[in-house]
């Protein structure tokens, strides 16, 4: 075995071990626990059961799921609405300035999203920074209640997930051939028509990737509704967290996790199916 192959083997081995230890093993444990019985002292015990999956079918939980889907959907729409123009201007900025602008999109990732959510709390609470400024400026006579509203949850979700929308959109828009837009204009298309008939259809792969990357995590970000929504809104993520940490029902929480995972797998499957068909129709 020569040196190059040795390195290849080492790199793959390292990756595989990492995945096995920190992704596969915990995942399998969750799947395993979801079939066990709840126990107060040891969290879970024998015998095997399907009860937790049966319980999930309860309309109460369907409502939680429906709620989550609505939140995720709206968050995705908001991110798309804000992220598309953002990515557009980013991709049309002078070439030498783009790395800096991209950096500014990415920098927040360097801090834990939990900490950034706390920062939002500090901004939005009754005696927080925004209210202090508004009061001092005389724009309002008493503090505006921002925290613990639906809007606050959306602000938190959109703020945390927006980069995941911007980056894939930027990737497709940056590659977009400017001459195609010129050709459309030359053939009589006004700005809006150029966008609708040329730019938008060609950026669809980025739109889909961005939507998936926002929609899926939005279902699981439990601490944002907790901290910003005052735990009034129950999402799938919160529900799972509660089962583990509050209700002490690990098997039920695991079953819900597995269910959420399956849902995501199905959505990803749909995405890959559509995007491969899209690519094929472009190529062939």
């Amino acid at each position, binding site marked *: 075995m020569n040196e190059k192959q040795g390195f290849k083997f080492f790199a793959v081995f390292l990756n595989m071990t990492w995945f096995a230890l920190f992704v596969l093993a915990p995942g399998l444990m969750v799947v395993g626990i979801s079939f066990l019985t709840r126990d107060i002292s040891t969290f879970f015990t024998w015998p095997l059961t399907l009860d937790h999956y049966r319980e999930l079918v309860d309309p109460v939980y369907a409502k939680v799921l429906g709620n989550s889907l609505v939140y995720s959907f709206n968050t995705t729409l908001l991110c798309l609405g804000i992220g598309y123009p953002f990515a557009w201007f980013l991709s049309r900025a002078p070439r030498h300035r783009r790395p800096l602008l991209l950096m500014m999109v990415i920098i927040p990732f360097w801090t834990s999203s939990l900490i950034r959510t706390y920062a939002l709390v500090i901004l939005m609470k009754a005696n927080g920074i925004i209210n202090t400024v508004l009061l001092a400026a005389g724009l309002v006579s008493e503090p505006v209640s921002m925290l613990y509203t639906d809007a606050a949850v959306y602000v938190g979700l959109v703020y945390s997930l927006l980069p995941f929308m911007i980056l894939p959109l930027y990737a497709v828009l940056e590659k977009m*051939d400017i*001459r*195609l837009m*010129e*050709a*459309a*204009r*030359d*053939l*009589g*298309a*006004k700005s809006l*028509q150029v966008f609708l*008939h*040329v730019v938008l*259809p*060609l950026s669809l792969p980025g739109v889909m990737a961005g939507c998936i990357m926002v929609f899926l995590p939005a279902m699981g970000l439990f601490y944002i509704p907790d901290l910003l929504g005052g735990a009034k809104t129950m999402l799938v993520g919160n529900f799972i967290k509660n089962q583990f940490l509050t209700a002490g029902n690990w098997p039920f929480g695991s079953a819900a996790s597995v269910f959420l995972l399956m849902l995501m797998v199905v959505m990803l499957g749909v995405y890959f199916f559509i995007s491969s068909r899209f690519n094929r*129709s*472009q*190529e*062939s």
Partner: protein
Amino acid sequence: MPVVCLNNISKSFGSQKVIDNLCLDIFKGEFLTLLGPSGCGKTTVLRLIAGLETCDSGTILINGRDQSRLPACDRDVNTVFQSYALFPHMNVFNNIAFGLKLKKIPARQIRDRVMETLALVKLEGMDNRPISRLSGGQQQRVAIARAIVNQPLILLLDEPLSALDYKLRKQMRLDLRHLHQKLGITFVFVTHDQEEALTLSDRVVVMHNGSIQQTGSPKEIYETPVNLFVANFVGESNIFDARVTSTMGPDIEIQIQGISKTVQNRRGFKKDQAVKVLLRPEDMTVERTKDQCPKGFLPGQVKEMIYKGTTVDLIIRLDNGQDIFVTEFFNEDDQDIFYDVNERVCVSWIKGWEVTLPYE
């Protein structure tokens, strides 16, 4: 009245002046070619007419109306782009129908016109093909069809043949000419290929550094270039330094490399003026020498002979060290045009075939 008038237009990108005070009239139905090296501003002129750029100063009249500030989508002008710029997410039909759909023409009529245009560019039955499954030549035809289906006042073509291989390029040249004759649309064609310019155009505009060097028929451009740039850029030229020794009516006597020649005086040259004498390789005559060259012939030695089938090309080093390029044709009375390398020869030309220009 010209269909396009460019009046004193200038255009800069940043600090670089690309078009400098350019004036040009384009007439209805003509095939006009903008010819020049890359970076001479020819594509910018095209983009200014299309409305994809706006000029810094000057006006652009299209059909008599000032359209300098009119956006591209409102001009009755269509472009065939160098890279074709076909829409990859549409098939051939939808690419060609793009402009017509925007004009809200009834679907039935669009179908007829697209099919008619497809036949015109010899792509019948290709309407359902995705763009990615077309060859370069077919893409080229779709790009042309997409533009002419709109029946524009002017068709702009930006080096449309440069991406094709030699054979296809020659075929497309012919097709373009036939298309031009059939449609009667004004064609404005941009190229850096002088052969393309000469074979296709009614009129050629030679550009250099953002301004026009010469405008004329292909014959005028080739046979009577107005300056050294045009002479060098269009075709091959041998250029001799010379000095006027005397004027004699319509002719002048000049000294070239110590030999005196009589040439036509078309530009009012005066005694003792320095001039350049230009000769095309095919306008030079070569004689074998016994000893001394006859009067009016320049002595030299064959350095290289290149057999080309219909012609023989010679590189001859004159006795003053200058290399010249001569093309000899096979013909009835001169069968023997093969020369040995290092053979001594004498070169001259028939009076009047030369172009004499001021020294620059």
